[in-house]
């Protein structure tokens, strides 16, 4: 098993290796390459209340980051290089900052204006987040976007997902209407509001039976 422990107790591994570790309750006690980060990471993942997966795609690459959210702390497995993941135990209240970082929520000057609520196909994210590079590239070309993302959250009662894109006029989020789906431009302030609710309201909603969801179930 190739677990790399770098200077500063930085732990990196492939996802399959992480899954093996997580499935082995004896690992923490017997690990010869024990690291405090890894021990903490396993401890958080084993008592998490919700799991999140953030997919972030650009025309020529796609990354999948994983998170196990517990009440006060969270484990992030951030894809850093060629399917290698960095193990990052952190505080749950720092999750929004990590998400904002990954989604590049920072000041930018819009270079064009897109009409509000542009209608898009319901499966737009399936194309933009496709593993197949040709399909993904064609979708980015067709919609003239720079980046697309989907945050799916899985809890004891249900799963929910939110998604969005980054284009020439800034961020937009996917919203379901009565008859169709649309990309609704959002300010960084609106997007930050949404991200700050991920470890709280979004995760709490996963413990309740599904009723209706503004985006998807």
């Amino acid at each position, binding site marked *: 098993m190739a677990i790399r422990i770098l200077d500063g107790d930085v732990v990196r591994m492939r996802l399959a290796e992480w899954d093996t570790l997580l499935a082995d309750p004896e690992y923490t006690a017997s690990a010869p390459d024990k690291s405090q980060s890894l021990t903490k990471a396993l401890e958080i993942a084993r008592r998490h209340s919700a799991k999140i997966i953030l997919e972030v795609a650009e025309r020529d690459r796609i990354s999948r980051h994983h998170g196990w959210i517990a009440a006060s702390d969270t484990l992030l497995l951030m894809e850093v290089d060629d399917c290698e993941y960095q193990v990052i135990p952190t505080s749950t*209240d720092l999750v929004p*900052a990590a998400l904002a970082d990954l989604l590049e929520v920072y000041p930018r000057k819009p270079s064009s204006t897109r009409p509000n609520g542009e209608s898009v196909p319901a499966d737009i994210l399936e194309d933009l987040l496709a593993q197949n590079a040709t399909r993904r590239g064609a979708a980015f070309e067709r919609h003239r976007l720079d980046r697309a993302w989907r945050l799916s959250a899985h809890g004891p009662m249900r799963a929910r997902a939110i998604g969005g894109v980054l284009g020439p006029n800034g961020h937009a989020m996917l919203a379901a209407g009565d008859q169709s789906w649309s990309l609704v431009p959002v300010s960084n302030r609106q997007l930050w509001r949404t991200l700050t609710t991920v470890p709280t309201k979004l995760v709490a909603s996963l413990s309740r039976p599904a009723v209706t969801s503004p985006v998807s179930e």
Partner: protein
Amino acid sequence: MDTRLLVPDDWEVFEHASGRILAIAERGSNSGLFRTNFALTVDGATSSDVVGDEQRFDEEFRAYQVIDLEPFELDGGHGLHRLAQYVTADALPLTMEQWCIGPYTLTATVETLRYDDYADLFEQVVNTWSLEPTGSGTDRNEGDGD
């Protein structure tokens, strides 16, 4: 130039001895860690050196992360709206929303995980803000306290 804004009537108002800082804080706190607050400061002219200001914040605040910077207009004047997050020495992430215009800076600060609960209030308070040629003060909101 004076200024006026409406704040929730059940929040506490503190004036710094210098007369240049007015703080308005929520009474108590759900978590007991941090009291959501506004701070209105008077500090000469609003800086036009946005890049320099950002560098200063980056040095002053731990894990400073700017979320948004955009133009802000009030009573015909042009200013700046800033949204950012940083982490306190006690490792508490705070979201700071700031509106700068003329000699004034209004800063609202809240625990990041509670930002969504307060964002509308912040906007409501800013919408009551005015710059006036005479008179001054911070009025108590006659309406609800939220």
